[in-house]
């Protein structure tokens, strides 16, 4: 303790350790405690959420099925030159026969067939018909396999079939991603698909375009309401706020079903239009199962997400600025446009990014009121997961969508800060 009074030497804490070290220790302990509190949740989110996302990303490039089901043939094919124009040697055919026999015995030959069918339509039937016969192959003295296989299915004489198998034999592939951007592996590397087969890029463009339209209509509708709420006395504003918060809290399905019912041809909106004579009874408007339906319903659903951030920004703008502008001779419009509006831009930005992020991932509402023309990329992902079972393609489309969202999320974090998200 006597050291403490010395002018030289380090300052010591009560227990005799140098103060610096003691403070550092305390800080470290504080950090550890904070991390320990966070750890359970972090592990939970990593396991239940981040790992699934990682699994999906892995699936978008994973391609073990070909080399695992056809191990001998893929190895034998590695020495074959796909551009030679000649069929592979008898050894490759023999390897294929052995692989097919084994795969057919395990009943997995159709799976590799449908995998390769995504890349080259027709492969599925090649494997199905050959697999059926393959069970009876006598590998020891059944040859020559080239003639045998071609007899079973003449497509085995097509170099394209072999090229597809060779192209997709590595354990990872960019095939799903190429497919997701409407490209495919042709003889000279990646190429665009023919015009009529290009689906996904158009769908992505449509998703982005419709989300932009929805964001824009949300801005237009939210701005006056947010302004009114921010400038009314608290009591009245709180009352009107209920009209914004009730839709916000109401189930998505309830709101979507409400729109489905309202927009039907025999629905309330058409009934009212017929009743006031704007529309003839025989010419009822078709406002559902198209893009219009999706945009109206989604604007309604996402509007509170725009109003709330705008409102919280507008609340902080002192009214004296506009008054000062007016007293300096500005007209109402100039005072609004040059003084008030620039101050509300952070609110518009926050709301727009939020609405846009939410909009491009929507699935339920477009599926119910969008028909075929008003669906989003999410609907195509869902289709590939549950109906076409092309999980690789679904994952690749999901990865692209995720990339778009993460870029926006990053921008949102930079502009607004995720800590500043407000709810209700």
């Amino acid at each position, binding site marked *: 303790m006597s050291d403490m009074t010395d002018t030289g030497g380090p300052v010591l804490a009560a227990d005799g350790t140098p103060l610096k070290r003691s403070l550092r220790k305390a*800080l470290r302990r*504080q950090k550890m405690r*904070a*991390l320990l*509190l*966070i750890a359970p*949740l*972090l592990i*939970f*989110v990593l396991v*239940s959420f981040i790992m*699934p996302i*990682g*699994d*999906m990303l892995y699936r978008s490039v994973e391609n073990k099925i070909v080399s695992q089901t056809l191990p001998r043939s893929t190895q034998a094919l590695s020495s074959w030159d796909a551009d030679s124009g000649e069929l592979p040697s008898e050894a490759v055919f023999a390897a294929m026969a052995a692989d097919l026999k084994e795969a057919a015995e395990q009943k997995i030959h159709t799976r590799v067939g449908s995998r390769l069918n995504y890349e080259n339509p027709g492969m599925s039937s090649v494997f199905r018909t050959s697999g059926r016969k393959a069970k009876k192959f006598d590998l020891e003295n059944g040859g020559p396999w080239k003639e045998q296989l071609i007899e079973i299915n003449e497509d085995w004489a097509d170099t394209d079939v072999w090229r597809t198998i060779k192209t997709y034999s590595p354990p990872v592939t960019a095939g799903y991603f190429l497919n997701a951007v409407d490209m495919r592996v042709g003889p000279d590397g990646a190429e665009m698909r023919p015009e009529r087969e290009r689906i996904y890029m158009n769908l992505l463009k449509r998703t982005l375009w419709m989300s932009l339209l929805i964001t824009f209509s949300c801005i237009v509708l939210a701005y*006056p*309401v947010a*302004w*009114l709420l921010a400038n009314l*006395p*608290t009591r*009245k504003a709180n009352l009107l706020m*209920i*009209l*914004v*918060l*009730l*839709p916000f*809290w*109401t*189930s*998505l*399905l*309830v*709101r979507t*079903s409400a*729109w*489905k*019912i*309202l927009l*039907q041809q025999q629905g*309330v909106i058409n009934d009212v239009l017929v009743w006031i004579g704007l529309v003839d009874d025989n010419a009822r408007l078709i406002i559902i199962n198209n893009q219009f339906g999706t945009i109206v319903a989604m604007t*309604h659903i996402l509007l509170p997400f725009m109003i709330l951030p705008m409102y919280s920004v507008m609340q902080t703008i002192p009214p004296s600025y506009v008054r000062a502008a007016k007293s300096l001779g500005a007209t*109402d419009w100039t005072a609004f446009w040059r003084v008030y509006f620039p101050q509300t831009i952070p609110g518009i930005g926050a709301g727009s990014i939020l609405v846009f992020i939410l909009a491009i*991932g*929507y*699935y*339920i509402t477009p*599926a*119910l009121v969008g028909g075929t023309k008003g669906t989003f990329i999410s609907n195509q*992902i*869902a289709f590939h997961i549950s109906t076409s079972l092309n999980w690789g393609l679904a*994952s690749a489309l*999901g990865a692209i969508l*995720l990339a778009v*969202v993460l870029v926006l*999320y990053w921008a949102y974090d930079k502009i607004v800060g*995720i800590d500043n*998200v407000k*709810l209700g």
Partner: protein
Amino acid sequence: MAKLPPYATTGQRIWHYTFLVICGLIFFFLIAPIAVVVPLSFNAENFFTFTPEMLRLDPDGYSLKHYRDFFSNPDWQNAMWNSIKIAPVATVVSVSLGTLAAIGLSQPHVPARRAIMAILISPMIVPLIISAAGMYFFYSKINLAGTYWGVVLAHAALGIPFVIITVTATLVGFDRSLTRAAANMGADPVTTFFRVQMPLILPGVISGALFAFITSFDEVVVVIFVGSAKQQTLPWQMFTGLREQISPTILAVATLLVGVSIILLTVVELLRRRSERLRGMSPG
């Protein structure tokens, strides 16, 4: 905008009232779709529009038959009970873990705070269809797909961002000298937490819990993929109902759900006003 100054010109008056009308129309757009569902659910016919009897306010035009159908139909009842079984458990998981983590995150020195925060908020930002796809693939691998706990786990993950956001917001206004005072007087950390900190941040925790509850209760995309027919929840049943044979029972369910959201909204608003009053931010 509350009142027009007495010196306003005619043009300003006209604009003022036009503006109010525009705002009125937007409020109408916000609330009308929800409001329309309620009377339609008492329709005596199987129509989705107002019958002439209903417009004449004839009592014969109204009935409770869609509600009776909801409470007697085994499919709907099953769905309702599934929702009731899943949402509260998911809420408990996300609130207990989320509150602890929020307290950790609000400590003054947290390494990699931004990154951790970004990860914890991400379930709210990632499109549901992507979460659903990933969870479906991954949970199938670990045999959780199609089970009750799989759905609970997935829903808990989706509710966590809401708990984190609301609880950290409450903790911003929390006076840390109170916990120090408690420790000073000999309370151990657990006692300090339950006797001092918890009562003060409880409003934030409850609103977080309500958000997490409604997230799970309304969720449909993830449960469709992760769950099996045994876990069919109310929103899922509504989704299939709207897709296939649309029956007016959906309107009765929708009305009941609107009731639930009104209750939740009221509780959250009361809590918010209480905490604002405590902090002296709002007159009342």
